[in-house]
């Protein structure tokens, strides 16, 4: 199938999905719509983690911090000016920013850019590290961001959090952002930069010998990753309608690690699927948190907290027995889809045969 057809198919698919998002906006009840929105937001952040972890091979755990930056920019600048006195009741807002109000889209972009700037500053000391060191250092910086936010009370309202953010529970809006992210990341990965990222992932020394500027490319991947994490975080804050430093503990990053592991490290469509499975799964598992009675007998296992135990066991099972995830490093393509539709049984058999 040639490239033109591919593009047409993808465009049609995106339009159909947008239609689905419109239908979701008007047809679904508030709870399901919220879950769908959360899926898309998690997909954005999963993709952002995928850029640096999956494609560039640099294990970063800083996503929660970048999300916090994006969410706080949305929180600080979209709350209507007249409500601010009520929100910042403990310490008045810093006069520098007290009168600035932005529409959501602008706040998202500013949040993403700010996150990318912070990533650039952090990247200087951090990106010289490898493997576990990098993981712990990025995790540390994500905590520092959170601590700074907690302490900069006149800007962020500190530990009280920001309430009264105009809620954005609009599936169409979030879908558009998600689609833009998808298209951008796909284009990035298929460009020469993307190939350089993959080369760094496979072998840093060989990549350097081939003339790839390691630091520049790592920093770029890290900044793009932070940008989209910031945008996703901004949407997350707007969806919740409130931001609070406790929402952005570094354990939040583990959700996205699970998403990319489940979807397959280094697969864009995989992490989309991973996001849907993880978010949907976490919601579905909520039944385990509620007391369950069978024939009038309460089953003692079912009580709050059981959901997260199952979730973490699933994560472990995934890592231990299913390391490649759903897609491995493969991508969804229309050719494969066509083959699959024509002969579903033979497709899986052939797939196993090849690899």
């Amino acid at each position, binding site marked *: 199938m040639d490239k033109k057809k591919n593009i047409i198919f993808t465009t049609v698919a995106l339009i159909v999905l947008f239609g689905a998002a419109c239908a979701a906006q008007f047809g679904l009840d508030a709870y399901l719509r919220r879950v769908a929105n959360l899926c898309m937001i998690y997909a954005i952040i999963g993709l952002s983690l995928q850029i640096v972890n999956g494609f560039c091979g640099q294990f970063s755990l800083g996503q929660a911090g970048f999300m916090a930056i994006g969410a706080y920019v949305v929180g600080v600048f979209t709350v209507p000016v007249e409500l601010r006195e009520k929100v910042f009741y403990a310490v008045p807002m810093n006069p520098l920013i007290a009168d600035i109000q932005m529409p959501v889209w602008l706040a998202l972009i500013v949040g993403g850019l700010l996150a990318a700037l912070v990533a650039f500053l952090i990247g200087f000391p951090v990106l010289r590290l490898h493997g576990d*060191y990098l993981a712990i250092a990025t995790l*540390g910086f994500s905590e520092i961001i959170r601590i700074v936010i907690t302490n900069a009370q006149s800007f962020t309202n500190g530990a009280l959090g920001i309430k009264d953010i105009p809620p954005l529970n609009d599936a169409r809006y979030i879908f558009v952002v998600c689609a833009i992210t998808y298209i951008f990341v796909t284009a990035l990965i298929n460009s020469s930069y993307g190939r350089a990222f993959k080369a760094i992932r496979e072998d840093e020394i060989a990549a350097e010998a081939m003339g790839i500027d390691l630091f520049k490319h790592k920093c770029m991947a890290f900044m793009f990753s932070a940008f989209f994490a910031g945008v996703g975080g901004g949407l997350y804050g707007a969806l919740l309608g409130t931001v609070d430093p406790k929402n952005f503990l570094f354990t939040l990053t583990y959700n996205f690690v699970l998403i990319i592991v489940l979807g397959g*490290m280094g697969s864009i469509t995989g992490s989309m699927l991973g996001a849907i499975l993880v978010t949907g799964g976490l919601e579905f598992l909520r039944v385990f948190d509620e007391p369950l009675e069978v024939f009038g007998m309460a089953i003692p296992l079912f009580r709050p*907290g059981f959901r997260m135990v199952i979730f*973490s066991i699933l994560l472990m099972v995934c890592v231990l027995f299913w390391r490649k995830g759903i897609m491995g490093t493969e991508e969804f393509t229309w050719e494969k889809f066509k083959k699959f539709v024509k002969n579903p049984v033979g497709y899986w058999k052939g797939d196993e045969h090849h690899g």
Partner: protein
Amino acid sequence: MDFATLFQAFSDMTFVSFCQHMVNGISLGSLYALIAIGYTMVYGILLMINFAHADIVMMACYFAFFGIRIFQIPWFVTLIGVIVATAVLGVVIERCAYRPLRDAPKNSVLISAIGASFLLENFANYVFGGRPLRFPKISLLAQNISIGDVRTQFICLCIPVVLVVCLMVLLHIINHTKTGMAMRAVSKDYEIARVMGVDIDKIISITFVIGSSLAAIGAFMWGVRYPGITPYLGVMPGLKCFIAAVVGGIGNIKGAVIGGFILGLGEVLIVAFFPALSGYRDAFAFMVLSIILFYKPTGLLGEKTTEKV
């Protein structure tokens, strides 16, 4: 925040309050050191961050709580029981979460370690509840004593002594026994050690036993000193202890102790001298980490390594 308030505490600081802060700092530093040794030993041999170590500390606190409070066992018997139970837990984690991935890419092992830590936290949250429990009061250890004008708990004096004893035993094991020799060999070169007939799996298990036992001792004293126990109690200290291990030079036991003291003392003294910065207390460790990694990427006592193609 202006500089006058920032430096206010300097002029208020007296010798007695300085000593007071030093005592607190040294006891905190010793606790960090005990836990950091576990991180550094596992890293030295398996080249991975044992993220679950922090949660092993947390579980040890709960074991102690159950031993003393629920089963009414005397605390010194409980301490031994806690050490055994925690060592078993450490080995079980290694068997289930790390051994199957011995030959897997490093990122998989890292994710598995994160998963193990996440599982332990959620398990504790589910079984013991999220409400903080109060570590049972041990009147001998928790009694207040005063030396001159410096007032402290008896446990604060015990902690450094226990650390020194543990360290001496550990260094003896590592430097003067056959097992210790095997451990050093494995951390130097995994493959060659295996070829020379070292039972790798056994050595790794022993490493986990030692690391977890030290974590158990540290956790017990942590509980006496800071009595609120929650499922997430280990997370922050665990991160700081890993940082202590990195700062000292990972894989190096003395380095871990030095790192532990730097972080413990630094954290207490910074808050003592600059009370205005007390909100940034937890950020201190990460600042130290980034400064050290920037200037000396292998840590204070770490060996220089070159990357081989």
